[in-house]
């Protein structure tokens, strides 16, 4: 099987609008969570979010194209433009061998909101372009068109595991020889307002409205839920041959993907499923548990996830669980749902490439059931070679990706 490398990174989130801003935030331990300003959240319990803010989309998309695009497509195009430039990626000679696979969770909130409000409040017909704007797969279509990617293109919708599935799928296609390169990642905006309000009533989001920048507190004794975030993260994945042939800079290698399902409950995770994803990833990457240096945890900061994930890590890694580092960068950029796996892969790869372990911010006093090394409060300088990234979704879909420092 062929080796698969990461040769380009692009990201936009509450931490900033490009990779240097993300690197800076991760290296200095800066949080992107704040009081929600993009809509009126006063009537909700949760008034904190991780918004990407006003973005200069003109840099990536012409004005006339922008009006046919929802923010979820714009975010994807914006992050992809950075990744493409970063990798000097060009599919003009081998478009049929290049593809695009993204993940998204809850779709184009702004467009759905305005269409629904018009129909219900005023019996006003939505614009015809509402359909191409609202398609969950619109971002992949636009990326395929923009960059001439004529190989496989997909949008994967598995809630919080969407973009981890996307990276895993792209990895699989490249290593099996079905394609040579992919733009792969995820995109997520705030969901339609009705769903945002429903997340509120589901009581899984933090209500730390009095300290918004410290609202996301994974593994902490006083954690009180996740912070909804917007983001897009797009990576350039290539076969080792393609990357080497063109002298590309290689950030890291993807060496395995572990997939599993809880087959248990639509919203409650179960340790068996989480363990199985991690074990499958280790087996796929031909790793022993003690080879792993760092796990970028799913670490949502919900009461239920963090002790379960901790227990699953202990079960899979045994004594080594005490030696490896685990952290949740959701403490900084919130839970970006369908973009989470890709954004957290960016954080993991930046740490591996630049020699630091990203921190779990706001972790002053851990939950007694969460007793691993979570790299609390501040990032730590460290050279590491092997990392995993966990993504566990409502629906019981679990993905663990395995990365290794690239050695030719």
């Amino acid at each position, binding site marked *: 099987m062929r080796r698969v490398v990461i040769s380009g990174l692009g990201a936009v989130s509450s931490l900033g609008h490009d990779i240097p801003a993300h690197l800076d935030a991760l290296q200095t331990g800066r949080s992107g969570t704040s009081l929600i300003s993009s809509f009126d959240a006063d009537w909700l319990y949760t008034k904190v979010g991780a918004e990407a803010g006003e973005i200069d989309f003109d840099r990536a998309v012409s*004005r*006339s194209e922008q009006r*046919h695009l929802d923010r979820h497509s714009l975010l994807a195009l914006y992050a992809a433009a950075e990744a493409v430039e970063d990798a000097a990626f060009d599919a003009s000679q081998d478009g049929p061998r290049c593809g695009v696979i993204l993940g998204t969770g809850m779709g184009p909130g702004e467009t759905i909101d305005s269409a629904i409000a018009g129909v219900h409040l005023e019996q006003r*017909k939505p*614009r*015809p*372009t509402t359909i*191409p704007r609202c398609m969950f797969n619109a971002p992949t279509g636009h990326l395929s068109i923009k960059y001439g990617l004529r190989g496989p293109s997909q949008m994967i919708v598995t809630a919080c595991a969407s973009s981890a599935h996307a990276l895993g799928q792209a990895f699989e296609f490249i290593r099996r020889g079905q394609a040579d390169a992919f733009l792969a990642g995820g995109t997520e905006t705030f969901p339609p307002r009705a769903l945002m309000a429903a997340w509120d009533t589901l009581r899984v989001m933090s209500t730390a409205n009095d300290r918004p920048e410290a609202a996301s507190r994974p593994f902490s004794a006083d954690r009180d839920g996740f912070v909804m975030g917007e983001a897009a993260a797009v990576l350039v994945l290539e076969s080792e041959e393609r990357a080497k042939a063109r002298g590309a800079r290689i950030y890291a290698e993807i060496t395995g993907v572990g997939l599993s399902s809880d087959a248990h409950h639509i919203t409650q995770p179960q340790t068996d499923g989480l363990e199985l994803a991690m074990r499958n990833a280790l087996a796929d990457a031909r790793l022993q548990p003690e080879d792993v240096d760092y796990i970028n945890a799913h670490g949502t900061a919900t009461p239920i996830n963090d002790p379960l994930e901790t227990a699953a890590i202990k079960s899979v890694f045994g004594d080594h669980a005490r030696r490896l580092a685990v952290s949740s960068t959701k403490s900084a950029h919130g839970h970006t749902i369908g973009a989470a796996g890709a954004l957290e892969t960016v954080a993991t790869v930046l740490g591996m490439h630049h020699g630091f372990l990203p921190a779990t911010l706001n972790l002053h006093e851990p939950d007694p059931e969460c007793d691993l090394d979570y790299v609390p409060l501040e990032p730590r300088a460290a050279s590491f070679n092997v990392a995993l990234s966990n993504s566990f979704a409502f629906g019981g879909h679990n993905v663990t990706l395995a990365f290794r420092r690239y050695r030719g």
Partner: protein
Amino acid sequence: MDIKAEIIRIIAGYKEVDPSEVKPESTFEDLGIDSLDAIDIMFEIEEKLGLQIPPDALDLNTARSVADILEVTDRLTAELGDQLDLAPEPTAADADKDKDQD
């Protein structure tokens, strides 16, 4: 209201060009209007003129120019005659009414 001029203004506004650049003989290709744009423009015409253009009134697969749109709107407005309820220019009184509704 001069419907022709209004439609030309709508198309020009959509393409962000001066209305003088949009002529009846201008083709969609000249103006850079693709099939999705054309459908979106029909929507704007309906909205702004308060006109219903049924899907069978204009075949967008064969429509090629601004004249094709004008022909349909001419026909529809002639058929409707006095029944046509063209959205009037908003008056100050209407603006006040809108405010009350908000």
